[in-house]
């Protein structure tokens, strides 16, 4: 967008990029806020149905779909209380810390090819790094409240998040390793084509990994059955016991934002991102759909965003379903699950995927060799090209040594496997 403003309207680059950044930020903010509204409503409806109730039915017509808005107005009107013993500065700032951490990681999250706030080359790394910062808000809130319940919740959250970052990181490394890039846009585009190209169907190990990833993601965003930090049956409301009004709702926006984020991350890493199960774009516009421009590109991206949002909402719905179905674990069970089960399983999956790649066993995409027009599969091409680019940076492309070329071929053979 900033390129458009510079080239078409002749804006100075800084103002153009500032304007583009502003638009991206406003869009992401609205996505989180409206998403939180929708997901809270969805959660109440799903919870109601699971518990054989109706859920909200009155506000806003038949399905009560304005219930969250009414709750939001109520929350704004509530008095903003702070305990007398509390550490004022940290107490006030903690919800914003949590929300900012959740919000910032959306910057690097692509919704379709090129539709991303900031196209970072190490987007996976960035998103995971920022996602881990949300725990600061929880710990600060727990500490600054000067309440036993809050502090217990915060300490549990700290132990849990520090532990679950390990298997989560291992699970994330696996698709990154198959793709050979940490760029989320490229990872998404490498899974274009039929649904068998999605990394969840790459081999049996990635199939299992995606489930481990989902469980660890549940724990890292502090959702049931891992919601030890707010365990309302034991700790009143955990870390946000002392909060009320709008500050309290910021914690919830952060929570639902994070849920959306980890679902989106899972959708890109394992479920093909914005690529549908059937290569619609290539049916409509031929095999060169990825290199199109203009309105066709826009249309494909629009389809892609719909695909993407659908997958993400599916993931969030699954989280809601799990929350209202499974009982909460004890803290020792949570830690045991992490260190004795998830971490070893993730490590075994890691080794398994490496071996699969090294032995050149067929991946899911090879089992269903349906090309749209007889061209070789897109992903293989892109991957080899990408690996060549990676190994031979442009500035040294003309003077690279024979050794680096040999290693490049090696990498391509190992990474491609076909």
């Amino acid at each position: 967008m900033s390129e458009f403003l510079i080239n078409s309207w002749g804006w100075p680059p800084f103002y153009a990029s500032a304007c583009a950044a502003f638009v991206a930020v406003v869009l992401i903010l609205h996505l989180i806020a409206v998403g939180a509204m929708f997901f809270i409503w969805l959660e109440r409806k799903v919870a109601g149905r699971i518990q054989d109730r109706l859920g909200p039915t009155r506000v806003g017509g038949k399905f009560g779909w304005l219930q969250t808005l009414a709750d939001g107005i109520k929350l704004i009107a509530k008095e903003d209380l702070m305990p007398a013993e509390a550490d004022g500065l940290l107490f006030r700032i903690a919800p914003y810390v949590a929300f900012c951490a959740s919000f910032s990681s959306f910057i690097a999250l692509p919704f379709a090819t090129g539709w991303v706030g900031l196209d970072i080359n190490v987007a996976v790394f960035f998103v995971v790094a920022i996602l881990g910062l949300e725990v600061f808000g929880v710990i600060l809130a727990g500490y600054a409240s000067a309440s036993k319940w809050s502090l217990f919740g915060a300490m549990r959250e700290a132990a849990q998040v520090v532990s679950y970052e390990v298997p989560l990181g291992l699970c994330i490394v696996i698709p990154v390793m198959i793709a050979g890039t940490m760029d989320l846009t490229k990872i998404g585009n490498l899974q274009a084509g039929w649904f068998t190209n999605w990394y969840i169907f790459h081999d049996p190990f990635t199939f299992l990994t995606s489930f481990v990833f989902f469980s660890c993601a549940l724990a890292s965003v502090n959702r049931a059955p891992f919601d030890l930090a707010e365990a309302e049956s034991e700790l009143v409301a955990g870390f946000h016991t002392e909060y009320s009004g709008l500050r309290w709702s910021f914690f919830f926006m952060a929570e639902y934002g994070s849920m959306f984020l980890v679902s989106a991350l899972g959708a890109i890493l394992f479920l093909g991102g914005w690529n549908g199960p059937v290569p619609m774009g290539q049916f409509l516009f031929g095999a060169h759909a990825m290199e199109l421009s203009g309105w066709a590109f826009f249309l494909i991206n629009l389809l892609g965003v719909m695909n993407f949002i659908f997958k993400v909402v599916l993931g969030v719905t699954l989280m809601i379903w799990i929350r209202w179905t499974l009982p909460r674990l004890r803290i020792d069970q949570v830690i045991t699950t992490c260190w004795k089960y998830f971490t070893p399983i993730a490590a075994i999956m890691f080794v398994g995927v490496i071996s699969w790649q090294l032995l050149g066993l067929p991946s899911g995409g090879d089992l269903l060799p349906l090309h749209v027009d007889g061209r070789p599969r897109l992903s293989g091409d892109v991957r080899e090209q990408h690996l060549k680019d990676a190994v031979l940076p442009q500035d040294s492309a003309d003077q690279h040594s024979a050794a680096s070329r040999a290693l490049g071929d090696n990498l391509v053979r190992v990474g491609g496997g076909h």
Partner: protein
Amino acid sequence: MESINGHTLLFLLFGALTCFFALAVVFSANIVRMAFYLIIALATTAGLHFLAGADFVGAMQLVLYVGGTLVVLVFGVMLTARSPFVSLRTAGGDWVLAALIGGTLLVILLPVAFQIGLPPTATDGIFTDPAGSERITSSVPVTVPTATRIGLGFLGVPGDDFSGYLLPFEIISIHLLVVLVGAAYLARAKRRTTVKNSDVSGSS
């Protein structure tokens, strides 16, 4: 109107924020607030890295330093949990020692900073590729990928010599693993003697 270099402004803003919160760490007396200021100072440093076009180093800063401060924060909370909001007073000797060390570092760093000059800004946010091949018309400097080069330089691949850091890295990894195993051994749950059937599994 003279074109304002917004990138430099942002860089200076982040630098000022970093300095402010670094000073706040020094002058605060509450250990948890100190940890919080430290987090902000380190996060704004990551912002400086991103502005300078070092996206990988910036993300690394977030993971290692900002994430690592989590442990400081947790320990701060745990140490002060019994009597809340303990304040930490610094003795006079500590001030002298800290000023000495900090001043020495400053003396070393300042000449280097002046040698390099101002932050890397071309005219009004137009950045040139380090390779010099093409001009990127965007004021977002992180479009030049750095992670691949860092990784390959680390392995010692793209240059003509194989002077990578793979062996030292492996040695350090094994060393760290040994240390971790030792720490886990020392901090393990002691052998249960009286309580039966209670799960005394070690925490993280």
